[in-house]
């Protein structure tokens, strides 16, 4: 279930490289599940826009607020015309959104140990998941990465649910120097997790899927790719997988994804197709289309 509504900006706040927006989007918050995203339309509701593609954004938090119902928070890294427009919205501004969308993270039935891997604003996709796992008695370990401190999401709330936290930045400005992909194997071994959840760039997701396979764990990977419509209509989001019957298929990243079992994705094919697209798609944890 998902709705298409005109949302209103209730709060907007710059934290590091990201703009954190709190939206009153009637009907969206109530339906959110961990790993859901929403699709924003760029441009004022009801007016012609030059930007037709949707901008998918992970739903970071859902918070009931007196008089507004369940508000939703999203994280925007302003890197292109669409994300700059979103980041520039002021309190009271309106925008059209569709959500929640996508196949969410599958939660374990048993209280098994879990590892959550997030990179850059992909970390936003993990907040609700961590809370849900914590409620179910699943021990949560975290591996969080970003290019630098400014692009590392604040993780205080996440840490509250976690047994252990490893932070890594490419420039070493916080935590260890390096990147998520290099540390996944070792972190997984130490955490003894039976399920790894990840929202990150493709190299890191690929590393997660591989490490899970080696350690006999399950992996649930949230694949960030451009989603021109985000609603399953345009076939613009091909995700190469091996289906349950063993046959190679191409499914839609927005509907059959964004969360897929790591052992089902044809990572080499996915990375090869992403490499053909200029821009940050293949590298950052963006659920975005042309940013």
């Amino acid at each position, binding site marked *: 279930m998902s709705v*298409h509504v005109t949302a209103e900006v209730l709060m907007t706040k710059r934290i590091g490289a990201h703009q954190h927006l709190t939206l009153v989007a009637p009907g969206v918050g109530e339906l959110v599940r961990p790993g859901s995203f929403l699709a924003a339309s760029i441009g004022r509701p009801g007016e012609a*826009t030059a930007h037709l593609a949707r901008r998918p954004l992970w739903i970071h938090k859902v918070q009931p607020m007196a008089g507004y119902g369940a508000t939703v928070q999203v994280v925007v890294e302003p890197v292109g015309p669409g994300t700059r427009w979103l980041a520039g919205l002021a309190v009271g501004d309106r925008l059209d959104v569709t959500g929640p969308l996508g196949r969410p993270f599958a939660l374990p039935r048993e209280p098994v140990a879990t590892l959550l891997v997030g990179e850059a604003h992909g970390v936003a996709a993990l907040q609700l998941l961590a809370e849900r796992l914590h409620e179910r008695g699943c021990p949560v370990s975290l591996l969080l990465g970003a290019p630098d401190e400014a692009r590392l999401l604040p993780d205080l709330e996440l840490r509250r649910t976690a047994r252990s936290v490893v932070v890594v930045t490419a420039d070493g400005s916080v935590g260890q120097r390096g990147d998520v992909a290099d540390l996944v194997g070792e972190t997984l071994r130490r955490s003894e997790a039976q399920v790894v959840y990840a929202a990150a760039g493709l190299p890191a997701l690929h590393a997660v899927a591989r490490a899970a396979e080696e350690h006999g764990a399950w992996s649930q990977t949230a694949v960030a790719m451009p989603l021109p419509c985000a609603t399953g209509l345009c*076939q613009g989001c091909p995700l190469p997988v091996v289906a349950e019957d063993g046959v190679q298929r191409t499914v839609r990243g927005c509907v059959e994804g964004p969360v897929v079992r790591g052992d089902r994705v044809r990572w080499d094919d996915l990375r090869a197709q992403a490499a*053909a697209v200029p821009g940050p798609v293949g590298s950052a944890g963006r659920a975005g*289309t042309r940013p």
Partner: protein
Amino acid sequence: MSAVRVSGLSLRSPVLVAAGCGGRELHAWSPLDALGAVVTRTVTLDARPGARWPRVVESPAGLLHATGRPNPGLEGFLAGELPELVRLGARVVVSVAGVAALPGQSDGLVPLARRLGALPGVAALELDLATPEAAHQGLLSAEEPHAVALAVGAVVRELPPGVPLWAKLPGRPGVVAAARAAAEAGAGAVVVGGAVPAALPDGRPCGLSGPAIGGVTRRWVREVCDALPALDVVASGGVAGVDDVRALRALGAVAVQVGSVALHDPAAPGRIAAELAVRPSPSPDSRGGAA
């Protein structure tokens, strides 16, 4: 009420969803049973995996697209998409295309028409002759009037009475002759417009759709309607809102397809149909319309 007759079919509304821009997912935001018809994505006899990434790219007020017509083939379509659309109450027009074939080989259109024409859930067929990247994608393209007549005639011969064929013809110089040839070969209506030939950023042939091409569609719809007043003309290309629909109808189109805008705003087709039902003709201040 805003019901219209197109090629002898009575449709609930003159607002249809264009091929490749709507499917069962759309029903959540634009109830399919309130639209004139849903034109399916283009189906070929055999399944097609579709083109490589990127397939759909934003362009000012438009979308560049070269999907490669991914589809599950006739059998997959009959097993999955068609029954779903029928169940949701959609009037279904099945878009079909032939594949480029050597002399003596089959382009697949005859078996497609035979099977589809016999099914009660199929209201009409739309023969796609307007794909700008057809040759590049190995699809049958027909530009000259006699080639159009051949392709149309081959399909019409296989359809039972009461199941009309619509010929989708590219808006370009020569469209009037192509439309006349299609009508003489038995097409019940022509769909005029479609995407404008363009290229993706990497140079691959593609189509340009969306509000950017609205003026192009108006031009060719007007020429065909003026030259062939007895022929039912369906317009496709650049519709952004209800004023565009009114303007195209004022030029003589009996029905109008909404494509890209459904990808940007999945509630748009339903909203446009509802607004049109309330006030079908252009208001004096929007004449010449589609501003």
